[in-house]
């Protein structure tokens, strides 16, 4: 199942899918975790998981939202990072770094690979992305924020 806002990634690639199991009452339980507390995609994801369970002929299924442990970009699969980059979104750094108040980030342009890039705004088209610009090829691009 793909993410509604980053349609090249599955919810498994993203690390949003935390597990599938059978609960004590026999129901199939799918655990998901939000990327950001207020991510509006969570409702759509939950609904689509419920529909997928129904389509698979599972009579008793439900979605459980878990908050702990808190989602981190470290859970994004390598496959997910590769697909993001091909889609034109700079993937998060492999290890989530806690940046100090005035730290610096170096993000490579997903189109030309140049590291001569600059941040336009910390808050982009979705909660999980920031908007950057490449000084070499002049293209603006989304960067998947590292948290």
């Amino acid at each position, binding site marked *: 199942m793909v993410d509604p806002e980053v349609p090249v990634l599955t919810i498994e690639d993203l690390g949003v899918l935390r597990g599938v199991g059978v609960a004590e009452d026999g129901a199939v339980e799918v655990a998901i975790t939000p990327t950001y507390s207020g*991510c509006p995609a969570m409702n759509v994801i939950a609904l689509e998981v419920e529909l997928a369970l129904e389509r698979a002929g599972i009579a008793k299924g439900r979605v459980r939202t878990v*908050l702990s*442990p808190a*989602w981190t970009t470290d859970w994004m699969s390598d496959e997910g990072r590769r697909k993001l980059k091909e889609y034109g979104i700079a993937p998060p750094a492999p290890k989530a770094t806690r*940046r100090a108040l005035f730290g610096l980030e170096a993000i490579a342009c997903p189109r030309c690979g140049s590291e001569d890039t600059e941040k336009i705004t910390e808050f982009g088209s979705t909660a999980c992305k920031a908007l950057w610009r490449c000084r070499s090829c002049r293209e603006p691009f989304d960067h998947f924020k590292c948290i």
Partner: protein
Amino acid sequence: MTTIIAADAPLVQYALRLADNALVLGHRLSEWCGHAPMLEEDIALANIALDLIGQARPLYAYAAELEGEGRNEDKLAYLRDASQYRNVLLVEQPNGDFAVTIVRQFLYAAFMAPFWRLLAGSRDATFAAIAAKAEKEAAYHLRHSAEWLIRLGDGTPESHARAQAALDELWMYTGELFEADAIERGLIERGVALDPQTLRPEWDETVDRVLGEATLKRPPDGWMQTGGRTGRHSEHLGFILADMQFLQRAYPGATW
């Protein structure tokens, strides 16, 4: 109209205080949607609002569960009157000009970033989980508001004057952030809540560093306003609630 009396169990109160702070500030920021000085900032303020409302939701859900009176997050948000809200006065202050909004955000975020980081070690598993999530978001809110404050303070004479005026006006609401009453002291002893005084050195350091870069003067600690956390609010909260709660008051139980 349903009258709901806020439960007084300390844990419920603590969850409500945190939730109300996040919801009221989130609502305030959402008022900028479509009105911010530039598109990027419009998106940023809406994003921060979304994070804050997202933080409020599990806190309300937890408060409702602990209370056990059949309320849910919507009832807590939409069907309590101003005197039942438990947020600090800082977050309900009007948006003012852009400098007021940024200063309010910075003063709050400089407190909340370390607050969530430390609350992630709470003995209460739900608070710890919510805090671990919120901390990552608060770090972004702090950085964003600090960068703007520096830009405004160290900008033109006009932006500097406005940023300083905003700081002077809002400073009297910062004392309340560091208060802990009897409700919280019991929770602090149990390792559930945080003693806000422990955050003072880090808050001071962040504020001094950013104000220094922004060439702004830290106002002296004079008379500090207080009362929001026990339901005594400024006149502004009623107007926020009138806006936010209109639909549920006019059409009780409406869903779509």
